């Protein structure tokens, strides 16, 4: 009731509360956990629900059938995870679990507290945990993230409260992080199917939730009502609010107007740079920034780039000089300011700021040494290698997958490369699906990509990219890098591991397999009365601490 638009809705709210009670009666009917069903609605005294707006979409509630942020954003509120990261921390600590640790190099053992239950009253035991991982691997849904469980050999449950993960390779430092992410959600074996994706409606009807919240009303990709789950006993403190309503938008401009007008309390993912800039000058809302895991970069195809291995004039030294000259010429600050108005910040290495082991390897190596471009240095690099200028470079970007500003970003890159006459850039764009097929088929000599981490560890910025077998398929291969990447993943001493991660970045920065450009900040915009919005390096916006 803080501003006019709230007043306008006051009467509606009264009606809402009444119908909420009806629902509580329905959902409590077939289970013995009335407590959870009526928790949020019963004590609406603790505050009217917080309305969160987003443009991310849900694929499916079932954790086995999704591999996208929109689904994770909901799953993370309603499903329990064995381990997690606490607010503003990047260390993996027990969440649902009592303890979680390596008991031998290939055994990761988790113990659960006694007497855990799902919101519907079903017992939550080690058997549910085993079921969750086994079904994910068995279903191997094409839209799912079961491939992240690449190192999981089998799950064993010696007793009701103990789970032992048998891993394929020893001392995997990454596995605990994966447990905090997509495939780590635990589901109720009495509700979910063992061999197929369970429909959202069935999950909601069975109240098969075990996270900080349950879903008490679910209108697919329109509105979701979250009500605090009293059965949850994990790491995160009990929700400080009486409930959350998640409202979906398609257009960021509509989301922006909605938060500006007070129709939603918090807007999270994704507002355009213009929206954020405009809202940051608006007294009725606050802009909250957090570290971002999202990175944007240019990939070089080592076969087809100028002087690449598969071109007629193949020359490794010249090819490297071309990549270096590009690195010398790009002006990240200009892109960050002009195109993204600071919602993305310059990125000078492969592991972004905020992760253990992040460096700024490229800052010293290229440009003027302080992050700004240096045309003379680029000219010198090319001349030293005997490269004829202007270098003809074909650069590709995608207009529809990495946000609407990609076109502006790459137009600026083109203009920066061409400004000194060293490059002649042929800039083209291709629609996403075709783009995805073409880029791995060696069609593009240099192209745009972006990355949003699967889990919050530096490894996720190295292994998928720079091993010889990588998802880029850009024919980059450096045996030293391969060895170091494989080593860091199994190095148990944190300091030693960090040193390795830094060394990998230094080496790759010399090779320039890819050219990192920008790192995205997480941005949420909230009404001035909203408190507790926490955006940290978990890259999950957790509803529990938000209050109004």
């Amino acid at each position, binding site marked *: 009731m803080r501003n006019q638009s709230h007043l306008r809705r006051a009467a509606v709210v009264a009606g809402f509360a009444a119908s909420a009670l009806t629902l509580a009666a329905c959902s409590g009917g077939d289970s013995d956990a009335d407590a959870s069903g009526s928790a949020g609605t019963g004590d609406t005294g603790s505050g009217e629900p917080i309305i969160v707006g987003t443009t991310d979409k849900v694929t499916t509630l079932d954790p086995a059938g999704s591999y996208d942020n929109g689904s994770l954003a909901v799953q993370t509120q309603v499903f329990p995870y064995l381990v997690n990261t606490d607010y503003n921390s990047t260390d993996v600590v027990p969440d649902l679990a009592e303890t979680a640790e390596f008991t031998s190099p290939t055994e990761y053992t988790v113990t659960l507290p006694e007497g855990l239950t799902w919101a519907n009253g079903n017992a939550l035991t080690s058997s549910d945990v085993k079921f969750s991982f086994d079904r994910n691997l068995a279903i191997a849904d094409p839209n799912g993230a079961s491939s992240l469980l690449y190192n999981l050999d089998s799950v064993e449950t010696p007793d009701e409260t103990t789970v032992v993960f048998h891993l394929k390779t020893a001392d995997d430092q990454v596995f605990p992080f994966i447990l905090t992410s997509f495939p780590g959600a635990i589901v109720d074996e009495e509700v979910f199917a063992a061999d197929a994706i369970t429909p959202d409606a069935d999950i909601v009807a069975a109240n098969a939730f075990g996270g900080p919240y349950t879903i008490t009303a679910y209108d697919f990709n329109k509105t979701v009502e979250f009500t605090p789950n009293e059965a949850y006993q994990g790491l995160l403190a009990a929700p400080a609010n009486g409930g959350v309503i998640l409202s979906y938008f398609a257009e960021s401009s509509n989301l922006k107007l909605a938060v500006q007008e007070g129709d939603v309390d918090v807007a999270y993912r994704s507002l*355009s*740079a213009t929206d954020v800039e*405009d809202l940051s000058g608006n007294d009725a809302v606050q802009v909250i920034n957090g570290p971002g895991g999202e990175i944007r970069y240019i990939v070089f195809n080592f076969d087809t780039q100028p002087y690449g291995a598969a071109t007629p004039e193949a020359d490794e030294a010249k090819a490297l000089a071309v990549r270096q000259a590009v690195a010398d010429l790009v002006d990240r600050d200009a892109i960050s300011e002009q195109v993204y108005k600071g919602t993305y910040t310059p990125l000078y290495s492969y592991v972004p700021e905020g992760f253990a082991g992040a460096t700024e390897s490229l800052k010293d190596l290229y440009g003027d040494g302080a992050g700004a471009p240096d045309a003379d240095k680029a000219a010198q690099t090319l001349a030293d290698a005997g490269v004829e200028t202007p270098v003809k470079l074909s650069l590709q970007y995608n207009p529809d997958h990495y946000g609407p500003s990609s*076109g502006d970003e790459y137009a*600026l890159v083109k*203009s920066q490369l061409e400004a000194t006459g060293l490059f002649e850039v042929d800039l083209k764009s291709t*629609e996403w699906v075709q783009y995805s097929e073409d880029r791995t088929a060696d069609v593009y000599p240099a192209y745009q990509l972006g990355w949003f981490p699967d889990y919050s560890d530096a490894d996720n910025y190295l292994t998928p990219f720079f091993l010889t077998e990588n998802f880029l398929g850009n024919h980059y291969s450096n045996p030293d890098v391969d060895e170091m990447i494989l080593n860091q993943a199994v190095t148990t001493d944190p300091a030693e591991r960090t040193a390795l991660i830094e060394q990998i970045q230094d080496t790759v920065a010399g090779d320039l397999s890819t050219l990192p450009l920008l790192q995205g900040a997480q941005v949420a915009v909230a009404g001035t009365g909203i408190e507790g919005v926490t955006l940290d390096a978990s890259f999950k916006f957790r509803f529990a601490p938000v209050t109004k």
Partner: protein
Amino acid sequence: MTKPRLLDRLPVVHQLRQAVGLQRGMLVAGLVLTGAFVVLALLAPVLAPYGYSQLADDAGNFGAQQPPSAEHWLGTTVGGYDVLSRVIWGARTALLVIIVAVLLSVFVGILLGLVSGYLGGWVDRVLVVVADAIYAFPTLLLAIVAAIAISGGQSGMWSGVFAAAISITVVFIPQYFRVVRAEVVRVKSEAFIESAQVIGASTWRIMFRHVLRNSTRTLPVIVTLNAAEAVLTLAALGFLGLGIEPTSAAEWGFDLNKSISDVAAGIWWTAVPPGVAIILAVLGITLIGESMNDLADPRLRARRRGKGTPADAVAQSEPVAREEMGEVQ
């Protein structure tokens, strides 16, 4: 003797002479707007202060979302382009799409209409059913699917123009097909075709000439209305993110799409110019089409003081009236 007659028979010129009063006013207004649009398109390189993908000049980057100034009369876009230049260059893209779309659909539509009407039989029936199915389907939905299918490749200016044009064409063809086929079926049954065959003239040739002559009343109207629709479809595709990227060409719908956030933030100069450009271009072309439509239909034509002979009016109205009854043959 033949010369003025020929000039008279040219579409638009013919109508301009025919029109009186308000109808003439509308037609002239349409012609002026459309003329301005075509001039902008043709002389874009001369008229536009900067290139459509130019981000900087000797004085450095233009900067993004700069308000109107002496250097940039209409300010700059969120991507840092000069708004005025992009609006002017956008006319060129729109005109190209119109030309390609109309040419393609006229050509294919007439060809299919001739074939269908002339051959008859199951070919005709299949074509008619297909054309009707496509005709009845929402234009934009089909254009969206077609645009995605066609633009699978890279989005250069020409591939972008063709993607938009072809997706529009798919939906236009049935209209030409319909008119031409009806005319062919009518002409085919007339006696002079047989006599032409007897003296050994090519039936195809005769039909083609007759059909075209008899379609000159309706085809220009459809062409103008389709041209207007082409501009709107291009803009709609651009707005839905299926348009031409700014580095390949300037496109009004794309610029409008990019300016949505600006409008919400009170930055008016990036959205209004391309929006107004679309409105004026479509308004101009549609005014011409409407006027021609009126003039083609004697019942709608504004009455001159000294009317044409009643017989003339009947002769003119005959095919139109018949078609209006929903009859094809």
